[in-house]
């Protein structure tokens, strides 16, 4: 395999309820601000969980005309915003058509998203005359796409490189970054956009996750609902957003004097192979992902200065992840600071690990660790070195992000500060 050495992240585009640029997002995380509110985008009565961190307004990039913009569905707008902002932030916008730029995009429910919009746009005429629709969508704004979103967006932006849509449930973003890094290291492309986007606050996903009893039912206390590692946690809270990064061969980035946000130092992935939903009670399969990432980065657990945990705030998930971290980190588990930014962003599902990679980059740049808010009474079965309630200044060189997902997916991404 051709190995061009390091892979840098040289640009980021993101849209979250806590900000649509890295600086604002990081500042809000470090301030411990929570984006979780009562759901407003859909009729939520009758749902077990009625709260979420919704992305209500997706900013329009100046590069896209208003008339074109409004024809896109919100998911398409989100992807466009993130990709355009990433290219602009990475100072590649003007050069995007002269480079073969690859795209690896995590989209876990692209087609169901469009089917659902289509259904609700026509619902009045189908089964519920006279009844308000669960989603207010105008028929003229709703078409079933004929081609995949990643291709439509690449064509719109004039990107001429390999492109794939990837779905590993909540670990999709980490997988996207891992695969894009591989494409760069093998010399296939010098530049690749990678990340993930999701808008899961929809009638079906709120119903399904709610009936699965995966979502918090603390509807009367939205800001206190997501409580990773806390003894009183009762499930995760749905979140929305997206983050796309410019990944680039170090050599290429140096040549064009690009400013690195971070370097991707390691990636590991494995599967539980035990259950589609419930994490394996045996920590070994997930530990394999962490060990592979550490080996890839050629570091030991004690070299990690901050771990952004997957920790969605479900009773089982947080406990299982703790066991995995304790198994792999050993004594270092007592010293490596850990937090879950999902306590503030909610769980972005497909987008979660991309948002958390952005949180890690923000932490590296700010030299401070965002807290797990609402961690008032740590669960003794989640005995880790928690950064709770308030951000903590720290010397951060290497940070890691765990992401696990349905289908038994386990991943770890390791990032390094580039001086």
């Amino acid at each position, binding site marked *: 395999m051709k190995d061009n050495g390091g892979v840098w992240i040289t640009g980021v585009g993101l849209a979250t309820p806590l900000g649509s640029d890295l600086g604002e997002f990081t500042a809000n995380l470090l301030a411990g601000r929570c984006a979780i509110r009562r759901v407003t985008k859909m009729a939520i009565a009758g749902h077990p969980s009625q709260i979420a961190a919704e992305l209500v307004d997706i900013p329009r990039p100046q590069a896209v005309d208003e008339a074109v913009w409004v024809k896109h569905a919100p998911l398409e707008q989100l992807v466009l915003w993130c990709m355009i902002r990433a290219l602009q932030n990475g100072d590649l916008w003007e050069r995007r058509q002269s480079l073969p730029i690859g795209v690896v995009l995590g989209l876990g429910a692209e087609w169901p998203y469009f089917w659902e919009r289509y259904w609700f746009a026509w619902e009045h005429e189908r089964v519920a005359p006279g009844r308000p629709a669960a989603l207010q969508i105008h028929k003229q704004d709703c078409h079933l796409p004929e081609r995949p979103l990643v291709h439509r967006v690449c064509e719109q932006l004039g990107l001429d490189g*390999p492109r794939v849509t990837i779905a590993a449930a909540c670990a999709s973003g980490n997988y996207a970054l891992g695969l894009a890094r591989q494409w760069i290291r093998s010399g296939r492309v010098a530049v690749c956009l990678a990340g993930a986007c999701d808008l899961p606050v929809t009638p079906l996903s709120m119903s399904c*996750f709610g009936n699965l009893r995966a979502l918090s039912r603390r509807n009367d206390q939205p800001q206190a609902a997501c409580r990773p590692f806390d003894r009183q946690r009762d499930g995760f809270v749905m979140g929305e957003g997206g983050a796309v990064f410019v990944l680039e061969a170090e050599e290429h980035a140096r040549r064009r004097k690009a400013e690195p946000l971070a370097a991707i130092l390691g990636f590991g992935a494995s599967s539980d192979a035990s259950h589609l939903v419930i994490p394996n009670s045996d920590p070994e399969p997930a530990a394999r992902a962490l060990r592979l990432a550490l080996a890839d980065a050629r570091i030991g657990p004690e070299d990690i200065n901050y771990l952004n945990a997957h920790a969605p705030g479900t009773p089982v998930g947080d406990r299982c992840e703790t066991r995995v971290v304790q198994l792999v980190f050993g004594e270092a588990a007592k010293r490596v600071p850990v937090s879950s930014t999902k306590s503030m962003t909610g769980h972005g599902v497909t987008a979660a690990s991309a948002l958390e990679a952005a949180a890690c980059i923000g932490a590296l740049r700010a030299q401070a660790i965002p807290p797990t808010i609402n961690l008032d009474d740590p669960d003794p079965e989640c005995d880790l070195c928690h950064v709770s309630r308030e951000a903590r200044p720290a010397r951060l060189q290497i940070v890691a992000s765990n992401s696990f997902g349905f289908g038994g997916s386990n991943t770890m991404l390791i990032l390094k500060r580039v001086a």
Partner: protein
Amino acid sequence: MIKYGGQQVKTSVPGVGAEATQVLRAKLIAWSSGAFTRRQLQRLRTELRLPNGETLPAAFVRHAEEQTIAGLAATLQTWSEMSQSLPEAQNWGVIAAPEYFGREATWSALQRYSQEGASAISPHLIPNHCLHSLAGSLSVLLGCRGPNYGIGGGPRQFVELLLAGLGEVQRDLAPGYWLVATAWRPAPPELSASGFDEPICLALALAICREDFPLVTWRARLSWYSWPRLFDSASSDESVLGLDNFVRALYGARITSPTKEHAETISWYIPRTGLLELRREEVAVSGQNETDYQEVAA
């Protein structure tokens, strides 16, 4: 020259001159494909046997998407036909590319939601009917602890499976990968619960690993000149690197495409098993060299 099945077939490709710079290779250890009716898929839910001889778990039988059953059937067939046991089978990865996965379940769920509300929605909908579900299900059923994820999801995104899979084998996360593709034919034109008299579910399972795996016989190159051409899923011409054409080629039908001058030509040919190579050729800057696609017996 390409050797195939003891024959030599000359295939010249105009416009190819410079050495290719972007190549992905993997060994195709084994493959199987199937085409199933709905009735057959229903029967397979109870008839399929896992490699250890056990029947499928009851919960899986109840909730699995039809494409998952088809993909599993093709994978199990490949597994059973391999002349050698898989090295470190428990650490293999699974990458799956279904088309319009979960469409009918989503349709039914939307009807129920409109009629009965949130409480009527099955908690199994997302775990079993989203793009990641086929790969996740195979990982669980086959006990594969390597990476698992879904790819594509839309119409004719088979090529993305090859891009991802042949990329994955180059790193050390797993000793090999199951690449599984499934699709209904004819493809569903729009969201609709019914519409075809007898739709067929195609399924293909490839077992691939790194090129240093022993016992390789043949090499196949799948070449093209520009990325957009490779992703031309709107085109119906037979040069498109899609599931249907790939299966045809595996069974021996040679796939060619109309050649245009300096064009975005795809030319590909697949042996039954061997070295599978996905290669982006650089168009020669000057002249029109003719380059033969090479052979090879390893």
